[in-house]
């Protein structure tokens, strides 16, 4: 038994040594990407812009990862042809070192922009970016570019849309009891929830906002239980963030309770009770980054999607009739935040 283990171990180690003897030069970043499509037009086709994105969850999670992937697809469509804008993705990269390997791999394949779409990827990016000075990296959601010339940072001021949602929620709520379902009280989720609570309090100081943190981004059953608890406690308006809220939406639909969404448009899940969603339009800042990259600046700037620049859009459900005065209030709030006259108070 021991002998065979040694044999196998030797074999495997031998394979590794053989592989390791391949010079590391195979990993050097090749020069500018070659166009992949044969140009069919008479005019010379511009070089395609190649983007790679590494995401912690699935591209169809209806939340964080999907928002970025959809944004990239929208840019691709606006550019007209797939050949003009090439997207590569790695989804479900919740293991940091796997994500680091992915980022490094994409960079070494000569992608123009490698997006590390997850706040947990920061340390990896800090290590990798200096090795690829010709590649532009983008990291979200954060504002920290590490002072590196080839790293962009982006974040979502999700408290803004949260505030607007809160204002509308408080206006529509009859019981004055409002519930929130969140994953963990950190990062983007915390911003949204803080903004939402602030919006509710500003509109109806007598209202109560209760928050249940489920401790996970994906535990759908727990989210539905949290929603049920809120409803039993008298809530008639709910909101939540992260991909697990689909479980909550199902429960709210059954009970006729209203729902406000964030990160993506959740109307299709429950057309009767979804009032509005704060939708992330990352393409607003992505386009800026792409322009900068094309012009030669590979990083050093941070961006935020806000109500002002159209990166955050409150998309109302066309089938839900919001009373006129509430709509006006919403629009005024959006305008106020956008032009800076209103600032969302955060704890």
């Amino acid at each position, binding site marked *: *038994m*021991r*002998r*065979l*283990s*040694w*044999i*196998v*171990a030797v*074999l*495997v*180690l031998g*394979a*590794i040594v053989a*592989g*390791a*003897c*391949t010079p*590391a030069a*195979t*990993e050097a970043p090749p020069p500018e990407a070659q166009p992949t499509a044969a140009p069919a037009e008479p005019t010379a086709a511009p070089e395609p812009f190649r983007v790679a994105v590494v995401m*912690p969850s*699935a*591209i169809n999670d209806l939340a964080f990862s999907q928002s970025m992937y959809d944004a990239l697809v929208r840019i691709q469509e606006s550019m007209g042809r797939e050949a003009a804008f090439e997207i*590569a*993705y*790695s*989804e*479900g*990269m*919740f*293991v*940091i*070192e*796997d994500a680091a*390997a*992915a980022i490094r*791999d*994409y960079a070494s394949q000569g992608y123009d922009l490698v997006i590390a779409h997850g*706040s*947990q990827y*920061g*340390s990896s990016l800090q290590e990798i970016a200096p090795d690829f000075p010709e590649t532009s990296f983008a990291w979200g*959601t*954060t*504002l*920290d570019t590490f002072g590196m010339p080839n790293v962009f940072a982006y*974040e979502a001021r999700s408290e803004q849309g949260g505030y607007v949602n809160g204002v509308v929620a408080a206006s529509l709520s009859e019981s004055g009891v409002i519930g929130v379902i969140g*994953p*963990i*009280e*950190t*990062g983007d989720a*915390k*911003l949204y929830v803080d903004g939402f609570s602030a919006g509710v309090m500003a509109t109806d100081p007598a209202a109560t906002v209760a928050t249940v943190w489920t*401790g*996970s*981004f*994906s535990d759908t059953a727990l989210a539905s239980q949290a929603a049920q608890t809120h409803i039993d406690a008298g809530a008639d308006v709910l909101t939540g963030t992260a991909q697990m809220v689909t479980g909550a939406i199902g429960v709210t639909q059954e009970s006729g309770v209203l729902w406000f969404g964030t990160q993506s448009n959740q109307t299709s899940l429950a057309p009767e009770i979804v009032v509005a969603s704060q939708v992330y339009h990352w393409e607003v800042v992505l386009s800026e980054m792409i322009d900068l990259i094309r012009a030669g600046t590979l990083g050093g700037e941070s961006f935020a999607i806000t109500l002002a620049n159209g990166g955050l859009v409150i998309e109302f459900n066309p089938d839900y009739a919001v009373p006129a005065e509430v709509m006006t209030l919403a629009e005024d709030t959006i305008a106020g935040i956008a032009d800076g006259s209103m600032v969302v108070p*955060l704890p």
Partner: protein
Amino acid sequence: MPRALARLQSRLLSPSWLAVVTPLGAFLAALLVGAAMLALLGVSPVEAYAAMFDGAFGSSNAAADTLVKATPLLLVGVGICIAFRGGMLNIGGEGQLIAGALAATAAILAFPTLPSVVMIPLGLSLGFLAGAAWGALPGLLKARLQVNEILTTIMMNAIAVQALNYLLRGPMMDPQQVVEGSFIPQTARFAVAADLPRLVPTRLHAGFLVALLVAILTWVLLWRTTVGFRIRAVGLNPFASRRAGIRVGRYGVMAMILSGALAGLAGAVQVMGVNHRMFTDGSSAGFTGSAGFNGIVAALFGQLHPVGTIPAAIFFGGLIVGANAMQRAVQIPSAMITALNGLLVVFVVSSDIWRRRMLQRQQRAEAARALQSSEAPP
């Protein structure tokens, strides 16, 4: 010519080669099924698998990634060898990993000015001890109160994750995060003195050597020391052991403590050699990469032998790294990779019966021959 072929065939079918040929054959069979799935997805299987092998072993960076991935699998797996052989089914690797990583993190953050030569052993030792403590509780509950350890270890995993979340979004959060208002649940980056040294100019760090050393030491422990002998005896036959005077409960607990300690050590190694800070994404898997579970599979593939776990862990590390590379190269959904990994595991583990049947057949043939030769007239 036919004789040479016959000799080759009988050589390949010899017991030690069978142990390699069988899983290899199953591996290839699973790859074939995977190839069909890839073709259905519109991807060239050849391109995909080439990318997979290349990503796992095709360059020094790839090999480094594979070994880095294998390190926690190896440490946890060796711990599992001790536990399972001691009759303790330790499913708590994830929680023990986290406990070890948190302990090391706390020490490193508390004493940022220590030199490497103090900091590194300190971090690793604390990881070892914290993991031991996290494994001791289920061990004691089993020994004293007959509480099933599978259950307690699974529960302790979940408890560890919540503790991790609490600490990282509160007391241990990077002060810079609080200042910036981004509240990412991670600690500050460790002092450079805490980084495990790199072995070659790749990402391969000294933790791999630690893991190899631990595997060899565990082999010595289990087969060359009294303690190890007693642990194995308790696992094989608790009743006979008790009658022989061995304190079954004590050695069971010891097995759990050692197993937890090694998983905790794995956590410390990960946080000091790879990540250089502690973070969470709500579940444990973002940090551990499910090493707490995959380590069990690696140990079982290694026939619960510490040295056998070495190639098993490297195989698994290569599988994961290679599969991710494949996903990137041919742009298939990550879910395909997960499904393929599952198929590979099922095929390889199911193939063992073929090896056992071949062995039985050979043994019977040999016995028949021996009988014949003894009956043959002189």
